[in-house]
């Protein structure tokens, strides 16, 4: 299990590959589900140029660790990776990556999605977008189920 808050930009696929290679679980997992959240150039019809992501050092990591551990127990996962950007983020860059490894696809799919929903609804991160209408704090994440 790895939880990381990253200040520098990352490529989601290089990160998953690198982490998976370190695990040595080939042959044990049959299903991997990944979600990658990336920065769009618009939000509710406003043009966005970049944004700044703030977090709560200590609580954010703790919160993510809790949801990862609970998912491992609930879905019998072999492993979980959560990686989240902070700081200045440009359009097109990856913001979040969640990967879950399991024997079966149902567990992989469901756990990956549940982790994302919990992250969106509770993990202490805040986005301030630089838009054509000035800098504004994003108000609320919408539930994705």
């Amino acid at each position, binding site marked *: 299990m790895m939880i990381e808050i990253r200040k520098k930009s990352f490529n989601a696929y290089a990160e998953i590959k690198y982490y998976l290679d370190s695990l040595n679980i080939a042959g044990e997992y049959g299903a991997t589900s990944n979600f990658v*959240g990336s920065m769009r150039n618009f939000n509710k019809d406003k043009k966005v140029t970049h944004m700044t*992501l*703030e*977090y*709560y050092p*200590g*609580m954010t990591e*703790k*919160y993510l660790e809790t949801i990862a551990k609970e998912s491992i127990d609930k879905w019998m996962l072999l492993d979980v990776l959560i990686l*989240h950007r902070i700081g200045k983020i440009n359009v097109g860059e990856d*913001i*979040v990556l969640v990967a879950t490894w399991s024997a079966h696809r149902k567990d992989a799919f469901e756990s990956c999605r549940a982790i*994302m929903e919990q*992250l*969106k*609804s*509770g*993990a*202490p*991160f*805040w*986005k*301030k977008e630089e838009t054509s209408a000035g800098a504004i*704090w*994003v*108000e*609320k*994440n919408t539930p994705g189920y």
Partner: protein
Amino acid sequence: MQVSVKYFAGIRELIGESNSTINVQEGTSVSSLWRSIIETKNVKFDNVKMAVNMEYVKSEHQLKAGDEVAFFPSVTGG
């Protein structure tokens, strides 16, 4: 007794500081601390989230000496 208080995002900007140490009475709830803060600063913020020692708490949660209290808006990560 003293508690340390942190503010994040829009609330940090509203309050004008990111953290402070505040004296509160024994048995003060986290929401009454918040009310006294916004009254002192003469500001308003709907739907504040509250955490004590890095765990979400309900508004009636009672503070203890040395607690780390955090106030922040709805989260918007991911």
